[in-house]
């Protein structure tokens, strides 16, 4: 049966030798957890279209949430390469699970850390790290996907706080979150500089989250719509250091960074499955691995994965040196997700008719990666971000 043999990763260029002992230890821990806890339950969760909630305590115990934030807030204080390796290994299991950790760490904990007051940090970060609180990130709106600056959710200041109104869409973790980071305009509706972030406990009156049903992708992840109708918040709900559209975009850069690694993980899973299958599947009296067409397929996959691994690693090193610019992150997200889409598809094809069965993983990755291709900046948006970087001219 698929996946019964132990997964040992893909490392053709001894990229392990470029990792520190801690980085490898982090990777191995998460890899083991994915094999032991995630892989055995993911097929059913996906089939039933639900997030496997039972995994949250184990993820928290290992320290997977906000692992690159400082220890004083109950986090592991890892460097960005180790953080990236976590994302790689989680997505080896399933994009939906990586998305869950990504949202909690990069889109909820990170903005509180970067834009929050000391009290907010002390209050929220340890609880989010321990999984006691689950967060979601409300930026995208139904009519403002690639263009968040156009948002129409508003926050009106009152004598004793704020009142929020609006609708957010495509919110991962939305229906089970206990707290939401919601971005809203505090000034003129045309003024993107007035965008500020708010910490909104989801039990606040006027706040509702509703699951998006009928998905053909990321089925093991909850995707929701958030409605805010006259949601009254205290004065200290605002993230004091958030300022303009730049702030949520900084969060997206964090998340995109993780996706650049996640794509590598999904690709490694598909390649590993395809290689094992090719070695065992006999057709015309020999393993299909012995045929030129399949060897070319595998060679192509391995080459692309190796390039993607080096890209992610170099980006991580740059990030640790403070040199990972948003456009550098765009290049890696765009390349690695596209690479993973291709590899998932070719792996599925190598698996032949069996490749459409739920017991194999490649087609699940293939479907998931279509979401990853689109979210956190679509492939096209990243083309245009890079285009702007290269030419100095915005074309969107």
């Amino acid at each position, binding site marked *: 049966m698929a996946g019964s*043999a*132990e997964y*040992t990763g893909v490392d053709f260029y001894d990229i392990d030798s470029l990792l520190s*002992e*801690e980085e490898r*230890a*982090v990777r191995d*821990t998460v890899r*083991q*957890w994915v094999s032991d806890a995630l892989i055995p339950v993911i097929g059913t969760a996906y089939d039933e279209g639900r997030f496997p909630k039972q995994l949250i305590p184990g993820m928290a*115990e*290992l*320290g*997977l949430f906000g*692992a690159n934030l400082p*220890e004083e807030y109950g*986090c*592991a*204080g*890892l460097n960005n390469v*180790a953080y990236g390796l*976590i994302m790689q290994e989680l997505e080896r299991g399933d994009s939906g699970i990586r998305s869950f950790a990504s949202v909690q760490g990069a889109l909820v904990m990170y903005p509180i850390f970067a834009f929050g007051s000391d009290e907010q940090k002390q209050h929220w970060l340890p609880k989010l790290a321990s999984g006691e609180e689950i967060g979601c990130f409300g930026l995208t709106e139904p009519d403002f996907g690639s263009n968040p600056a156009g948002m129409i959710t508003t926050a009106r200041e009152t004598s004793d706080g704020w009142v929020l109104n609006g609708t957010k869409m495509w919110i991962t973790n939305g229906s089970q979150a206990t707290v939401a980071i919601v971005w809203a305009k505090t000034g003129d509706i045309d003024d993107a500089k007035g965008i500020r972030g708010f910490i909104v406990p989801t039990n606040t009156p006027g706040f509702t989250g509703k699951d998006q049903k009928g998905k053909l992708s990321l089925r093991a992840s909850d995707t929701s719509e958030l409605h805010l109708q006259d949601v009254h918040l205290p004065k200290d709900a605002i993230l004091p250091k958030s300022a303009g559209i730049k702030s949520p975009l900084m969060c997206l850069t964090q998340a995109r960074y993780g996706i650049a690694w996640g794509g590598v993980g999904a690709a490694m899973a598909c390649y590993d499955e395809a290689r094992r299958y090719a070695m065992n599947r006999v057709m015309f009296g020999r393993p299909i691995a012995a045929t030129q067409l399949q060897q070319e397929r595998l060679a192509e996959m391995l080459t692309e994965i190796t390039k993607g691994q080096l890209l992610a690693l170099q980006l991580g090193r740059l990030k640790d040196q403070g040199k990972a610019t948003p456009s550098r992150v765009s290049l890696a997200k765009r390349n690695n997700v596209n690479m993973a889409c291709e590899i998932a598809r070719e792996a599925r094809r190598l698996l032949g008719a069996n490749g459409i069965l739920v017991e194999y993983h490649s087609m699940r990755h293939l479907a998931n990666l279509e979401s990853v291709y689109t979210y956190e900046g679509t492939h096209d948006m990243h083309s245009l971000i890079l285009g702007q970087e290269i030419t100095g001219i915005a074309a969107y």
Partner: protein
Amino acid sequence: MKIAVCIRRVPDTTAKIVIAAAGTAIDPAGVKFVPNPYDEFALEAAIALKEQAGDGETVAVAFGPDSVQETLRTALAMGIDRAVHLQGEPSADGLANARVLVSHLKDGGYDLVLFGKLAVDDYGQQTGAMVAELLERPCATAIAELEVQGGTVKVMREIEGGTEGATCALPAVLTCDKGLNNPRLPSLKGIMAAKKKPLDVTPASVEGAQATVVSLALPPERPAGRIVGEGAAAVPALLEALTSEAKVL
């Protein structure tokens, strides 16, 4: 309670074994090394016993080349307090290696010394019992259940066709089998904390080894078998083969 856990670094159990040119050891190139799986039961037992007692100290001890420090740090990442690296090359003689460990353990004031039941490389399965003998301490091997209360140790081990219960007093030496517990994974915080925990290095060397490896070789391949048929219809053919060819019925 002060607990020592003696651990080893071994090739991953999924590794393909290649014999080095000299023909007495494996070729380590490309082989992934991991903490000996049985030692993880011992590490988990030590950490859990300390957690249960609320105080005490756990120490991981390894005799081997510098590469064992990575294994020691894995132990620290799991939650062991400090590590001792007895730096040197172990021999093929379990007793000689046991003497090296004893040089550290005898004055360490340990209430409990834990080992894995065996190391999945050499399958020697002897160092723990030998250390107990040299320290003149009670010893139970291959335990699958453990209870420590006051100064008393109660263990259960699996033997052919049953389970054997035994008791002894602290200080004692135990070797741990699968089933004793579910070892925890090192947490990410644990991995970071491991860097800051003490790891003492003491040079050590074996003396008077009485065992020499003559050769190490791959086992003979099993001759190719055959598919006797498909489904339940093949059962008579199988039975015939087992009776008249293999003669095992």
